[in-house]
């Protein structure tokens, strides 16, 4: 494997500013055997990580009569599965519910977390620490452990089978991430910028909207995409708080598909692929910021 003469550690390539001095010749781009092995292993692993999703796509393209064939690829590709699934099953309703829940939860999270994050980042106040602790603890509590309590609460409020309930609950369990990442972002923007704008005659609110918000945009985008994805993927609360099939989110609808007598796997995965692919693409945009949000900043 490695010898003592070569660089043993990581090289923080991406952190380097674009115009930095060229690196010494030591890291010249020659393909040493070691690099070759690393490249091969990394690409192989990448393929393995994508493989289950590729198999879902292949299954989604299989004609019904080729589902039981022991072939890696079907003879014919049935692209129409992607359209038929919405017509032949009730999953269209579920997709609509999921869109409403994810959209609603995202808007709600942003509406309540932005002011809180702004205030927490800018001001010292009594209870600031307790507020942040409450937020942090919420982030660690997942709905699964509280399911029975959630069910009892919304049963008593007569709010089962309501899209609003799932918007509220999804928003609540994603608040922490949003507050956390927005507070960190806004806190990193000097308050002097706002004050300068205010000297120029802008109101504090105007300064907040026109100066701070645009600068905090990466944080806002991260919070929005993360909340949307998590609500989009949510399963246990949908399963517990909605019992009527047409009021359930897509994850639950897809899971119900398996309970059916004969599972139409091609349709099931056509719907799954539609649900998965956009989310993976969206996630790629925020990947850099997510870790610090999820670990509450304890890992930069």
């Amino acid at each position: 494997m490695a010898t003592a003469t070569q660089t043993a550690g990581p090289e923080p390539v991406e952190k380097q500013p674009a115009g930095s001095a060229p690196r010494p010749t030591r890291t010249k781009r020659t393909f040493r055997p070691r690099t070759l092995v690393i490249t091969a292993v990394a690409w192989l692993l990448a393929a393995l990580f994508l493989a289950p999703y590729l198999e879902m796509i292949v299954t989604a393209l299989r004609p019904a009569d080729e589902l039981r064939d022991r072939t890696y690829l079907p003879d014919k590709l049935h692209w129409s599965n992607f359209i038929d699934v919405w017509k032949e099953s009730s999953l269209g309703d579920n997709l609509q519910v999921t869109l409403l829940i994810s959209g609603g939860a995202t808007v709600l999270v942003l509406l309540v977390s932005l002011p809180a994050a702004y205030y927490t980042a800018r001001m010292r106040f009594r209870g600031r620490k307790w507020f942040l602790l409450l937020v942090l603890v919420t982030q660690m509590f997942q709905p699964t452990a509280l399911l029975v309590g959630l069910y009892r609460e919304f049963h008593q409020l007569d709010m089962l089978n309501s899209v609003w309930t799932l918007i509220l609950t999804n928003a609540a369990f994603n608040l922490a991430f949003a507050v956390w990442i927005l507070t960190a972002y806004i806190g990193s923007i000097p308050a002097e910028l706002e004050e300068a704008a205010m000297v120029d005659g802008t109101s504090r609110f105007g300064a907040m909207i026109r100066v701070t918000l645009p600068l905090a945009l990466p944080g806002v985008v991260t919070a929005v995409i993360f909340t949307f994805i998590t609500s989009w993927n949510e399963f246990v609360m949908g399963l517990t708080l909605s019992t009527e099939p047409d009021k359930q989110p897509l994850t639950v609808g897809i899971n119900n598909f398996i309970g059916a007598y004969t599972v139409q796997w091609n349709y099931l995965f056509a719907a799954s692929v539609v649900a998965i692919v956009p989310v993976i693409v969206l996630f790629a945009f925020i990947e850099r910021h997510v870790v610090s949000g999820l670990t509450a900043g304890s890992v930069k």
Partner: protein
Amino acid sequence: MSLKAPPVRRTRGGLARLGPLPWIAPVVLLILAVVVWPVIELIRTSFLNISIAGIVRGSAGTDKYKKLFDETDFGHVLLWTVLWTVVVVGVTMLVSLGLAQLFNQRFPGRRITRWALIAPWAASVLMTAIGFKWMLSRTAGVLNTVMIDLGLIDRSKDWLGSAGTAWPWMMFVAVFVSLPFTTYTLLAGLQTIPADVYEAARIDGAGAWQTYRGITLPLLRPAFLVGVVINLINVFNSFPIIWAMTQGGPGSDTATTTVFMYKLKETDIGESAAMSVVNFAMVVVLVLIFLKVSRWNEED
């Protein structure tokens, strides 16, 4: 901690006069309604007799807990929950250490391969689990086909049909979906190690393994610990994988406490609540550990 308290500042405008309430109250209210209330409701329900229709039939004292602890499956479920959590988190951490090291190297296509790695993180855990259920199916599962073609098995097996083979596969899926977050956390941790530390080690003539043991691992400790605790919480709560793949069956042979709780909900919600309280207590312990490990409070 990235959220240092801002410097004390005197504000001229309305910000200070109104105090923090209008800013943070919506967040606090949402958390109280959707996170704190269910906790109280959960504990209350565990001491009540409630009919299947949801009508309260008086107090049950500690009967529900007694009934829960007397369940023949209870000890078995508890044991497997511990095994499930420890094995999945242990394997995840070990594999992630290797992955982080690999993806921290420079090689062609690093960005693309890293991107492939996030797929299981962004995609719904439920749908990934359903994908594996399909790939493991006896009739046409591609994993069966691959293993037959490789000569690993003679004929197709019903992997999820018995606990002995279902557990390892479900653990595999749990590790698979936990790897991206963990690897990215460790990658973030690796980025915080200054390059000159490695330079110094190189000049001192330290070998690659020596450098890794002596420098990388100790400096990676904070990120590693945070990764362990967050994974413990996630894996302990990972209901969708088991629910999608075996529903905890046959019987309760492949159930963890969260799955067991969900199954009990169908027959006796009080007993299910008692199980939840036990789960919740375990999560609280894990959260307390997280607060300690993430060094909450250190700089504030």
